C-alpha cells in the first residue's frame, strides 16, 4: 500500500494505518526538492524587500513569534548574514548535501528570516505554510534518495517504509489544518455577513482603496466587483466551503483533484480580484504532499531519457562512433 492508495481512516487502528502507511523514499525526496526549491526562490525573490526593512525606523519594529522578546530590530548586517546562510543552507537542502546539518539549518533559517519579515507592523500570511512544512521536512529522512548524500553512500536505495510515509501525511495535514483555520476564521470574525458577500465586498473595496491611496497598483477587477457585490455572494460561500472541506484532499482520485483544483482556483480568484497572491498554493507546492510525485518525476525522466537515447541513436555517424 502506498500513501495515495489508502482510504481515509475512521477508527483509531485505521487512523494508525493511514498515518503510518508505507511510501517510497523518493516521494519524500521529491517533496524535499520541491518545498526546498520554492523556499530558496522565495528568499531570493524577496531579498530586496527584506533589505529595505533594515532601513525602516526602529520604532516601526513590532516583533512577533520567536522574535517577540527583542527590544529592537537586529542589526542589518545580522539580517543579511542570516539571509545568506539561509540561501546557502537552502541549496544544500535541495541537493540533499550534509542533510543532518542542512535540513534543520535551512528550516530554522527560513523560519527566522520569515519571522523578521513579518515583524514590521504587518503580518502577511504568505510564508506561514512553507515555514511550517519546512520545519517538519528538515527533521525527517528526506534525503535518503535523490540526494548527494545518497549518491556518496553508494548503497542501494532504501526500501519503502512508514518512515517515509508519515512525514508526507503530516505535511499534508499541515496544509489541511491551515485551510480549515482560514475557513473557521471567516465564520468567526465575519459571521453570517461573510456568507452573504457583504464582508467580502467591503474587504475587496477597502483593500483596493488602500492600495490606491498609497500609490500602489490595484486589480482592474476590484472596482467592478466592489460595485457589483452580488457576484461575491456565491464566491463567499464557495470560498468558505472549499477551506472547510480541505480534509477531502486526503481522499484519493477525483475527490482530491477536485478539492485541489478548487483551492487553487480560489487563490487565482483572489489574485485576479485583489492583486494579492499567495505564491505557495498558486505554485501548487502547498498541495504536493497529496500526490505521488515520484511517479511523475520518473515518468518525465523516462521520457526525457528515452528521447535522449533516441536522439543519440538517430545521430548520423553514431554507429561508426560506437564501433570505434
Amino acid at each position, binding site marked *: 500500500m502506498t500513501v495515495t492508495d489508502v482510504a481515509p481512516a475512521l477508527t483509531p487502528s485505521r487512523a494508525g494505518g493511514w498515518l*503510518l502507511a508505507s511510501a517510497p523514499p523518493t516521494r519524500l525526496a521529491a517533496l524535499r526538492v520541491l518545498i526546498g526549491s520554492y523556499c530558496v526562490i522565495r528568499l531570493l525573490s524577496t531579498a530586496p524587500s527584506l533589505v529595505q526593512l533594515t532601513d525602516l525606523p526602529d520604532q516601526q519594529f513590532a516583533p*512577533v513569534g520567536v522574535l517577540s522578546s527583542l527590544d529592537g530590530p537586529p542589526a542589518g548586517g545580522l539580517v543579511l548574514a542570516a539571509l545568506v546562510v539561509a540561501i546557502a543552507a537552502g541549496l544544500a537542502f535541495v541537493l540533499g548535501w550534509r542533510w543532518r546539518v542542512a535540513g534543520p539549518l535551512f528550516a530554522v533559517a527560513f523560519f527566522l528570516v520569515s519571522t523578521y519579515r513579518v515583524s514590521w507592523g*504587518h503580518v502577511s500570511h504568505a510564508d506561514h505554510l512553507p515555514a511550517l512544512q519546512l520545519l517538519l521536512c528538515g527533521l525527517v529522512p528526506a534525503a535518503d534518495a535523490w540526494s548527494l548524500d545518497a549518491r556518496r553512500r553508494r548503497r542501494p536505495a532504501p526500501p519503502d517504509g512508514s518512515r517515509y510515509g508519515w512525514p508526507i501525511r503530516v505535511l499534508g495535514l499541515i496544509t489541511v489544518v491551515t485551510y480549515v*483555520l482560514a475557513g473557521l476564521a471567516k465564520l468567526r470574525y*465575519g459571521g453570517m455577513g461573510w456568507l452573504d458577500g457583504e464582508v467580502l465586498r467591503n474587504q475587496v473595496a477597502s483593500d483596493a482603496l488602500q492600495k490606491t491611496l498609497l500609490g500602489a497598483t490595484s486589480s482592474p477587477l476590484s472596482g467592478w466587483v466592489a460595485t457589483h457585490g452580488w457576484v461575491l455572494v456565491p464566491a463567499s460561500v464557495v470560498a468558505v466551503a472549499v477551506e472547510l472541506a480541505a480534509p477531502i484532499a486526503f481522499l484519493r482520485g477525483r475527490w482530491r483533484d477536485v478539492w485541489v483544483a478548487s483551492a487553487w482556483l480560489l487563490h487565482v480568484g483572489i489574485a485576479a480580484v485583489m492583486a494579492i497572491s499567495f505564491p505557495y498554493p498558486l505554485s501548487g507546492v502547498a498541495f504536493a504532499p497529496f500526490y505521488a510525485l515520484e511517479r511523475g518525476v520518473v515518468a518525465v525522466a523516462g521520457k526525457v531519457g528515452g528521447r535522449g537515447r533516441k536522439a543519440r541513436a538517430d545521430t548520423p555517424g553514431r554507429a561508426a562512433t560506437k564501433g570505434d
Partner: protein
Amino acid sequence: MRLSWRAWTAAAVTVLVVGAVPLGLDRDSFPLSTFPMFAADIDRTQSVDTAVAIRADGTVVRLTPAEIGGTTVVNQAASVVTTAIVGGRAGELCTTIAGRVAGDAGLVAVEVLTERYDAVRWFDGDRTPVQRAVHARCAVGS
C-alpha cells in the same frame, strides 16, 4: 514503536499546536495564526493613513509605497504612516518623505494625513472624502 510514537507526536502537534492553539488564543502571529485573511467584518467606510504630495496649483499627487514608507510593500508603508501618527512623529515622517520626493520639481509640499472614504462609493465614482485630517505638512526642498 519509536517510529509510531514520532508519527503520532508530529500529527498531534500539527492538530493541537498549529490548529487548536491559535484558535484558542485567538492570535495572529508567525508561524501560528488563525489565518484571518479577509475575514474581519469591516465597515465599507474606511480610514487610510497615507501621505500625499501637493503641486503649486494645489493638486494632490499620490506617492508610491517606497516614497511613503521606504518599502515596496503596501501594508508595511501604511503601517509606517500609522505608527508615525500614533507615535506623534508625523512631522518627522513628513520631512523624510519630502526628502525622498525632492527631485520632482513640480512638488511644493507633502502632507501626512488620514483620509476616510466610503470604499464602495469610491469605485462608483464618488471620491468625496467623508473626512480628511492632515497631521503634518512640510515643504519640499526646504
